[in-house]
């Protein structure tokens, strides 16, 4: 008799990995000729239940370029483990050929050349085509949205999320959980959630005053699919009031709350759940730990840290699926659930090559309708770029180098700080920079660019504090962003050290002098979590800077020395 573990591992070997297909080397045909929609969607329907996972779309309705990180370091037990594997190592791990579509979709190197060959990715009209195709094969497939959906673009900002709500509602998800959505403010959040035609879930969304589950969000919802009672439990981003401005949603408290999670799993099992799915915005390493701590979760659909993995990761009997960000990927997971148990699964991370997957015409029309009132503002060309502009990476990205340069010159500061968020599409060398592009990397409801004085010692404390949010060896203490980006400042970080001992050799780049702990420096930054922050909006600061530059060029950033990796 085959044990459950054996079965899972057998299925694992049968997991469809797109990257295993060979597409030759350099100089191959353009994407639309080498790849077909049928190939991308090919899937041998399996078992009796299908899950479709999208997450961290960050307002991206249209296809975009998005470069995956070069530097994504794991610490503690996650050192060297996926998703902390990048570039050629990632390709070797998954058997992905150099120069292949999967190389372009999943790794960072040769990005510009490959992007010119394979074109943009994502677009919710292409996602709609994929979702419809899966539903054609399995009409009762569950579509689950991991959150960070109603945030991240010009139109999303100006409609307070309504553009994304309208488009996602047309895609008909079955449930959703949340993160940046809360930065719309609790009043707007309530207005949208009360009108949602699907479940708004979060077992860790609590009433801050009473420390009890919040009424507006349910911990879980049951679905009957393929003869199986499926419980989908939601887990919102645990550190919302810390990583984002808590004053915008003071009624709510979050946290990991894994004991409460265990209670919820036990509760749904008692009510007859044959399959327990966790729709999570924890971040990948937190989900791995939660899978080990909480017993009885079959599948975790993982979001927040923007990792795209061509195979699920197994922790015990729990399958963890990571589906990338910005609309680049859709995950399909087919499951065989019998006698109240998951007997096996088949999975595919479907890359949304926008030149290969035909857009769904109705969805294209709906998307264009959302954008129509803002057409001219979106398309206005502010400047050009000579360099690849991207954001992802633990310590810096060229977009943030540009933002920091804008802050220092426009706000006359010695040092600039830019938050280590992981959203924001890339631009290729030679592309125009439009207003839409600037909003794609800066849009938020607390974008005021502050200018203040900080002592050298306080700057070090800030770096230590943020550093521990990323490099604390216990994932439950990690917040899932990247290191705060700095301009005008160099430093050394030893990621293997505890908080307070990671940062050293802080240098003011314009003079080459060591930072004096006692001395005050003028610091400009944005996205402060503090209430009452004053200053111009960051997108206006960046726009003004780019207009003056005309064409921007970003030199490679060597100001952060990393040790202990």
């Amino acid at each position, binding site marked *: 008799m085959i044990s459950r573990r054996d079965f899972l591992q057998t299925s694992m070997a049968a997991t469809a990995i797109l990257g295993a297909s060979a597409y030759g080397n350099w100089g191959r045909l353009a994407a639309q000729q080498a790849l077909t929609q049928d190939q991308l969607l090919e899937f041998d329907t399996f078992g009796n239940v299908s899950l479709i996972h999208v997450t*961290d779309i960050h307002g991206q309705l249209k296809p975009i370029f998005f470069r995956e990180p070069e530097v994504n370091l794991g610490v503690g037990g996650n050192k060297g483990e996926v998703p902390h594997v990048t570039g050629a190592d990632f390709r070797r791990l998954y058997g992905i050929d150099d120069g292949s579509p999967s190389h372009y979709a999943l790794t960072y190197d040769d990005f510009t050349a490959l992007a010119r060959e394979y074109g943009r990715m994502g677009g919710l009209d292409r996602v709609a085509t994929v979702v419809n195709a899966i539903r054609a094969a399995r009409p009762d497939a569950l579509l689950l949205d991991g959150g960070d959906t109603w945030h991240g673009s010009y139109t999303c900002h100006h409609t307070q999320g309504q553009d994304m709500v309208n488009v996602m509602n047309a895609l008909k998800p079955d449930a959703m959980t949340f*993160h*940046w959505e809360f930065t719309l403010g609790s009043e707007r959040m309530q207005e949208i959630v009360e009108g949602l035609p699907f479940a708004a879930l979060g077992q860790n969304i609590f009433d*801050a005053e*009473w*420390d*009890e589950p919040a009424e507006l969000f349910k911990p879980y919802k049951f679905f009957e699919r393929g003869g199986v009672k499926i419980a989908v439990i939601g887990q919102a*981003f*645990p*550190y*919302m*009031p*810390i*990583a*984002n401005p*808590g004053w915008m949603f003071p009624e709510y*408290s*979050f*946290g*990991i709350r894994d*004991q409460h999670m265990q*209670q919820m799993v036990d509760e749904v099992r008692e009510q007859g759940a044959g399959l327990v799915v966790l729709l999570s915005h924890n*971040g990948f390493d937190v989900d791995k730990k939660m899978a080990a701590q909480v017993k009885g979760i079959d599948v975790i659909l993982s979001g*927040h*840290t*923007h990792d795209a993995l061509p195979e699920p990761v197994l922790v015990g009997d729990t399958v963890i699926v990571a589906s990338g960000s910005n609309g680049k990927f859709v995950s399909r997971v087919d499951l065989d659930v019998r006698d109240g148990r998951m007997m096996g699964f088949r999975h595919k991370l479907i890359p949304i090559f926008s030149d290969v997957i035909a857009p769904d015409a109705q969805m294209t029309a709906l998307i264009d309708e959302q954008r129509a009132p803002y057409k001219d503002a979106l398309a206005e060309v502010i400047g050009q770029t000579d360099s690849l502009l991207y954001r992802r990476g633990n310590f810096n990205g060229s977009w943030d180098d540009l933002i920091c340069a804008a802050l220092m010159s426009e706000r006359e500061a010695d040092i600039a700080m830019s*938050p*280590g*968020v*992981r*959203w924001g599409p890339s631009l290729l060398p030679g592309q125009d920079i439009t207003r839409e592009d600037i909003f794609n990397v800066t849009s938020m409801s607390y974008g005021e660019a502050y200018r203040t004085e900080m002592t050298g010692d306080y700057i070090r*404390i*800030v770096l230590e*504090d*943020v550093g*521990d*949010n990323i490099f604390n060896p*216990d994932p*439950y*203490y990690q*917040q*899932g*962003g*990247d290191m*705060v980006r700095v301009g005008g400042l160099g430093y050394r970080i030893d990621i293997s050290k505890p*908080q307070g001992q990671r940062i050293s050799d802080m240098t003011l780049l314009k003079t080459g002098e060591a930072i004096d702990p006692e001395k005050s420096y003028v610091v400009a930054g944005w*996205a402060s*979590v*503090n209430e009452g922050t004053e200053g111009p909006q960051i997108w206006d600061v960046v726009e003004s800077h780019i207009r003056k530059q005309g064409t921007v060029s970003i030199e490679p950033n060597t100001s952060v020395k990393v040790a202990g990796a």
Partner: protein
Amino acid sequence: MNFTRRETLALGAAAMAVAALPLPALAKTTDELIAEFTGGADVADEGVELDAPEIAENGNTVPIEVAAEGASAIMVLAGGNPTPPVATFNFGPLAGASRAKTRIRLAGTQDVIAVAKLADGSFARTSKTVKVTIGGCGG
């Protein structure tokens, strides 16, 4: 075990005897306070539960919950505060459960410690690191 809000509040009011601790001339260390509470007896690592957030949303009011089946008393210490003693919850024979929930103030990142005097007179402790941060930036 599940309590409604009302039950928890009632339970807390009935069972809780929070000592308003006078400021000692010299703050005692957590080890000294534990030794005082246990009378120097051995302290086991299992038998008391402490629920606290990994990272505090607001260091000025951090919700915590302690529980130990059948315990007659549970002491809570915040080792990194200027005065580590937070509270000692005493549970009489009529207490429905040896469980208490409250909010505490933490001066900074530190271990919160709970030590319980169990029904058989033995002692158990547990601790949890609660981070108090200046705020970061989420993905």
